């Protein structure tokens, strides 16, 4: 016989308006095993919590049911409440009478009837609840950060500062990420390189950071506290241990590849460092464009290298790294705007995308910081910046890319400064919700940038107007005056959507993350756990979670570092207790559990002919239990009999 207490929350009027709460408590009192039932205005408030705790003591309760908001809201709160009153936290059942009852109907009778059924279900289930005890495992103190952009760099540095060993994995030959391509940053207009390169250098200097550039994550095994990660070191064809970064090789190399850093505006050598401030300052050979790899002769770099560091025989190598936590900061890709034929990118030379313009601004860029047309000399006298290209667009990416308004303003400012031309902003809505952002917007308005509220419909070079000949014509409605406007300009800048990395899904699969409907990594909870993922011990930071600007990416990097630290700072860690176990007496040895488990938690013991579950790997999804024909697997807290009892209670009335 259980001693159950039922506590009905009014949630102000949120519940009490539609559910007759006192009738509910009255009903609960008639149920077998319920020894006390009370209703109260705010059960989650301190007096409400005390009410529960007092009743636990007074009535010697061994099960507690709280009828209130969704368990996703306050289950943790009430678990703490009963634990502090001496009850095991798993002896709690939450009845959702708000989100799934009082808020979704206006009919009092209907709402109250449903609430009664739900409470009855909870009583049936509560009788069978079992106290569960958390387990502890050893924790590996090291952390891996994947992605060497600003978010990843920040996370790595923070962690290194606390004395933790960090592996920073970056797939390109240098860290720095997209931020390294920028000239200035909004809204403060400070030099991107000036704030980024010291951090990059700090990474290099830190004795706690092991920098793994030109590397990719190949395989992930293990679980929170104890990940085993296999890293592929892609062949650089340059022995970095021998290389003294003299870069003589890059001067002599006849091979030419497209400069990723300069967004393809110029070529780079086949043996190269991506940009002068790259970290590490050691080159790699781009096999695709290397004359030796293509034609079988050349080896000029080898000849000039005094260190004999060139190694054409180099192969990809693998290494295993053990860490306790992982931070993914893999960033974003810029949307390819070529398919949006109405804007002419790729066809009309005057049309640029945002990152190309960033490179034009940059003094280390292909034009040494001069804004010129693709001919390399003509300075544009009029420029239109087109917002929301592929963002907020059902046909492309439905979400707002969040940073474009602000960098478009930055562009406008820099264009004004560098070209003194006319600058148009074609926007749908100006979004400036950040510290100093609105002020920046105001500043640009004052700088006489022409704001046209309307999304550009077309860019063309065809015109009947002889005054416009040779110009690009941007067609747009100025929605504020309802007039169709054609703007002749020299240059058009597209602000394309930020989208998930092309291989984000693969990465998600490696780490067992889920992705949202756009393909960004899914956080555990949008508000309360924005840096955590469904995989314990794997955190996310920066634009891999959703489009973000630098301040937010940096904050997230720092936050993720702190999150990772909460795990690796401890020697041992507590694991979720609601996991599955095998009743070996009932196990028929069919191995269905082994076959289905996404986490590899069940293992087959060939000696005993039964399955065994490694609880450290188990996430408690219950797939194995439903696949077990002999009912031998017990998914704790969601056991077959608990679920069946709850169903029975729900269906009684």
């Amino acid at each position: 016989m259980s001693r159950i207490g039922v506590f009905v929350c009014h949630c102000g009027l949120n519940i009490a308006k539609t559910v007759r709460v006192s009738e509910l408590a009255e009903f609960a009192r008639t149920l077998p095993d319920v020894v006390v039932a009370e209703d109260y205005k705010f059960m989650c408030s301190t007096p409400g919590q005390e009410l529960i705790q007092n009743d636990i003591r007074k009535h010697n309760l061994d099960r507690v049911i709280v009828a209130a908001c969704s368990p996703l809201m306050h289950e943790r709160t009430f678990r703490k409440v009963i634990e502090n009153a001496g009850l095991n936290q798993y002896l709690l059942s939450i009845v959702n009478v708000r989100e799934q009852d009082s808020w979704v109907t206006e009919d009092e009778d209907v709402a109250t009837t449903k609430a009664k059924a739900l409470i009855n279900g909870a009583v049936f289930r509560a009788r069978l609840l079992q106290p569960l005890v958390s387990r502890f495992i050893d924790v590996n103190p090291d952390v891996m950060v994947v992605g060497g952009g600003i978010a990843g760099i920040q996370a790595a540095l923070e962690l290194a500062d606390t004395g933790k060993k960090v592996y920073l994995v970056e797939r390109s030959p240098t860290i720095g990420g997209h931020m390294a391509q920028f000239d200035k940053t909004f809204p403060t207009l400070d030099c991107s390189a000036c704030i980024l390169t010291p951090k990059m250098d700090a990474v290099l200097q830190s004795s706690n950071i092991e920098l793994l550039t030109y590397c990719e994550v190949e395989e992930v095994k293990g679980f929170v506290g104890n990940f085993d990660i296999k890293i592929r070191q892609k062949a650089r064809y340059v022995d970095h241990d021998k290389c003294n970064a003299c870069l003589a090789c890059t001067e002599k190399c006849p091979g030419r590849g497209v400069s990723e850093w300069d967004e393809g505006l110029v070529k780079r050598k086949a043996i190269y460092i991506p940009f002068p401030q790259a970290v590490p300052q050691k080159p790699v050979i781009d096999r695709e464009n290397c004359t030796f790899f293509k034609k079988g002769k050349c080896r000029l770099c080898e000849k000039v290298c005094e260190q004999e560091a060139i190694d054409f025989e180099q192969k990809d190598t693998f290494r295993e790294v053990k860490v306790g936590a992982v931070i993914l900061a893999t960033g974003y890709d810029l949307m390819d705007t070529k398919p949006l034929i109405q804007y002419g990118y790729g066809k009309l030379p005057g049309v640029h995308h945002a990152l190309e313009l960033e490179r034009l601004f940059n003094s280390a860029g292909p034009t040494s910081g001069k804004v010129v047309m693709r001919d390399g000399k003509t300075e544009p006298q009029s420029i239109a910046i087109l917002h929301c290209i592929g963002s907020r667009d059902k046909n492309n990416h439905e979400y707002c890319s969040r940073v474009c308004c602000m960098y478009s303003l930055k562009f406008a400012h820099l264009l004004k400064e560098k070209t003194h031309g006319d600058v148009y902003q074609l926007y749908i809505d100006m979004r400036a919700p950040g510290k100093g952002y609105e002020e920046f917007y105001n500043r640009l308005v004052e700088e006489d940038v022409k704001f046209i509220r309307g999304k550009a419909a077309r860019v063309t070079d065809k015109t009947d107007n002889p005054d416009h000949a040779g110009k690009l014509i941007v067609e747009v409605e100025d929605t504020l005056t309802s007039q169709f406007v054609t703007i002749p300009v020299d240059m058009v800048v597209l602000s394309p959507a930020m989208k998930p990395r092309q291989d984000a899904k693969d990465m998600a699969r490696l780490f067992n993350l889920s992705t949202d409907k756009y393909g960004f990594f899914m956080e555990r909870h949008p508000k309360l756990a924005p840096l955590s993922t469904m995989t314990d011990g794997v955190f996310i930071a920066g634009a891999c979670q959703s489009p973000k600007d630098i301040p937010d990416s940096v904050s997230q990097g720092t936050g993720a570092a702190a999150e990772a630290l909460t795990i690796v700072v401890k020697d041992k860690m507590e694991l979720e207790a609601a996991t599955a176990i095998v009743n070996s007496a009932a196990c028929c040895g069919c191995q269905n559990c082994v076959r289905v488990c996404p986490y590899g938690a069940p293992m087959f013991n060939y000696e005993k002919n039964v399955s065994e579950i490694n609880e450290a790997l188990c996430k408690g999804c219950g797939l194995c239990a439903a696949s077990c024909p002999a009912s031998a697997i017990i998914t704790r807290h969601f056991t077959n009999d608990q679920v069946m009892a709850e169903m029975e209670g729900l269906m009684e009335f």
Partner: protein
Amino acid sequence: MDFEPKILGIACNWCTYTGADLAGTTRLKYPQNVRTVRVMCSSRINPSFIIRAFQLGADGVLVGGCHPGDCHYGTGNLYARRKLAVTKKILEFAGMEPKRFRVEWISASEGKKYAEVVEEFTNDVKALGPQTKFKIRKD
């Protein structure tokens, strides 16, 4: 009085249950005939649960999970889909009206879809009348 069906809902914690919560947070109104059991994943659903629900007198059973490919446990609902598909065939061949059992993928952001599915399913079940085929009769 109109027949008000009793429907058992089984919803996964991460998507459908959260989606149902969202329907509440956005104050959508829909019929209250579904009483939901929360499980961690749709793959937790043992097909016998469905049979049992009908035996307990459920007039309909509505199962909700994450969209295939979006399972919080990676692949859980891909297995669940097969399990539930076979369950559906079993019910149908045993003589249960197939419309009494429905599986829907409803994500955490699809509060509206949840409300719509519940409304549609409730109406479907209502049209079928009380379920007596599996229901245990207490004499």
